[in-house]
């Protein structure tokens, strides 16, 4: 094996390691392992010290193991390739698990907040009594039943558990974001919340151990409960929005609009619809352009490429950009020029009386697209009305000019035809 082959072999091995490290199943198996250790240690310590905090947390972690398996199933389904029935794949299933995890965090946060309030009230007996008089269903406070010899063990278990949760949650979130698995990110957030709760529980034990003041735990616990509820709400709302195909966030849509209008050839952005399928951003745009098909191909490329780049930067694993082009809305109307014959050719006549011809011009957005030269009829006014002309241009010089803005007489109900000064005398400058 020469050095080049050996280098390429090393690169492949490195690539395999990275692939394994970023494999969602590797992460989730690690999560299962972590929770198994936690369940074993917390339940053992809980039953040995008769600690309801440790026992309930141990059972909570047991449910986390089941949740980890559920996430694996969801990831498996989300990774299935798209087919004709599900052209965008089934990655939205991840939002179902995010929804459930978000909801469970909301419940967990509320439960934790309630326990903390009960804990605080326990140290204020009068207030406790008063509150319980009104809220009869308040749970009883379960203090930690430990002795001096068990404190170091309990502190060690909770500190180790909290640290593990923090490390594993970071790993889950990183892999979830890089592979586009929302459920992994959500589960990572849940693991992080567990870690925070464990650290607070540890502070309670430390408080009791060092100062004989276990109440120290509860104000902090209320703070953590708020964080947990906030995380739960975010996960829930994100999943809810994605499942109901809510638009992408406003700032993302604004950037999409700005980027689109930045591409040469786009006259206007008529409609924009966006939503999310899994971590795929979907954008449906209707654009206005004046350009022909060959040029529009490059406009399409520019919009697609630049939006794809932006959405990737914005954190979406991929994007689907669908563009529809519409031609320019044209404002059409009709004008006329009074034309007279001079010795050297046609010119714009100074007035209707001296005109020998009338050039009836179809105008689109200020541009004469069609002009027809008609011999001036004996009665030009009705003729101009019949042709739906709304302005007649003449070229009269000098003193006559300001006084010219007169109207051709019209019958009641007819729109007046305005006589206005032409800028040019020579009809060829009008394309005539």
């Amino acid at each position, binding site marked *: 094996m020469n050095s080049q082959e050996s280098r390429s072999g090393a690169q492949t091995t490195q690539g395999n390691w990275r692939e394994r490290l970023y494999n969602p199943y590797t992460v989730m198996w690690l999560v299962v392992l972590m929770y198994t250790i936690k369940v074993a240690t917390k339940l053992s310590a809980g039953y040995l010290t008769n600690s309801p905090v440790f026992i309930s947390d141990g059972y909570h972690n047991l449910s986390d193991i089941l949740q980890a398996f559920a996430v694996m199933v969801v990831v498996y389904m989300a990774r299935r390739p798209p087919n004709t029935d599900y052209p965008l794949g089934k990655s939205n299933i991840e939002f179902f698990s995010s929804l459930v995890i978000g909801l469970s965090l909301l419940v967990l946060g509320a439960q934790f907040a309630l326990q903390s309030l009960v804990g605080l009230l326990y140290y204020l007996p009068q207030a406790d009594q008063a509150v319980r008089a009104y809220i009869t269903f308040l749970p009883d406070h379960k203090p930690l039943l430990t002795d001096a010899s068990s404190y170091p063990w309990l502190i060690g278990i909770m500190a180790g558990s909290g640290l593990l949760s923090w490390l594993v949650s970071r790993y889950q979130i990183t892999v979830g974001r890089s592979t586009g698995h929302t459920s992994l990110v959500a589960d990572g957030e849940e693991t992080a919340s567990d870690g925070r709760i464990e650290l607070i529980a540890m502070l309670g034990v430390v408080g009791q151990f060092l100062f004989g003041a276990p109440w120290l735990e509860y104000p902090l616990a209320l703070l953590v409960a708020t964080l947990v509820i906030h995380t739960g709400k975010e996960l829930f709302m994100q999943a809810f929005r994605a499942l109901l195909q809510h638009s992408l966030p406003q700032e993302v849509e604004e950037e999409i609009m700005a980027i689109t209008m930045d591409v*040469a050839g786009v006259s206007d952005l008529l409609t924009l619809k966006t939503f999310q399928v899994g971590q795929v951003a979907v954008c449906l745009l209707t654009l206005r352009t004046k350009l022909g098909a*060959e040029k529009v*191909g490059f406009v399409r490329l*520019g919009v697609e490429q630049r939006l794809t780049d932006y959405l990737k930067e914005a954190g979406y694993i991929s994007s689907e950009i669908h563009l529809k082009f519409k031609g320019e809305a044209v404002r059409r109307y009709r004008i006329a020029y009074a034309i007279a014959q001079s010795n050297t050719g046609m010119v714009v006549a100074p007035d209707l009386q001296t005109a020998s011809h009338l050039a009836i011009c179809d105008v689109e957005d200020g541009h004469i697209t069609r002009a027809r030269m008609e011999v001036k009829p004996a009665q030009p006014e009705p003729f101009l009305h019949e042709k739906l002309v709304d302005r007649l241009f003449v070229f009269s*010089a000098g003193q006559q000019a300001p006084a010219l803005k007169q109207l051709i007489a019209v019958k009641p109900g007819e729109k007046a035809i305005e006589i206005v000064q032409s800028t040019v*005398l*020579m009809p060829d400058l009008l394309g005539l």
Partner: protein
Amino acid sequence: MNPKQTKLIIGVDYFRNIDRVPNLAFARALMQYLDVELIHVRATAPGADMTHLAEEQATRIRQDVSRLTQVPEDCVVIVPDFPPGALIIDNFPDRNRQNLIWLAPMDERGLTTRHRGSANDASIMVPFGNGNSCLKALQLAAPIARGSGAALLFYHTTWKIPGLASVKADDHMCREAIAIRKALEEEATAQSLPFRTLIETADDVADGIVQAAVLQRSRLIVMPRSQTVEVGDYCLRVFDKSPVPVITIGKEVTS
């Protein structure tokens, strides 16, 4: 072909086509960037029997152009035709007039109406091959880039050399193109103009140029017409395909 040295003439046809307002907007911007004071407007003068009205028509055209461009009326010059070397803004150039420079605005309303963010993200593209004429295109592109606050983008697409495995497009460039690249980059450096160079192996040269212009946020493509190609001039093909405004420099201007 330094615009300042040769007193470049910037012109538009009056009422010639649909794009009167954008044409005048581009003319106004170029006057500013190229330090040109006058705008030349081509308009047919009346015949001998109407000479008394000729001045009236000229006055009205001057007033109209002045109103649309904010250029003083006495800086609007009415001409019967454009002299060789003039830069004309028009979406429908006369392709046979090789002694003029044509700027087609396409559907753009001005040189700086798009492109948000950092000005240097936007670019003025000078595609180059293995001929010297692109150096003359740079002489025109440089003040426009400086004036509009855009970077210069030198673009080259090359055919792959058979048997050469390198995936780097630069490695497939011919010697002449490498020399031209060096000259362009040296000139931009000498003028303290920000620039970037993009070398590709596009399947089609014209498509490659237009695609790069769109993706690299070019405000303008400045290209000379080929001195030798009679059919399929890349410059005209780019003109036909590009949504980005294009300046084509007639071959008699660069020869």
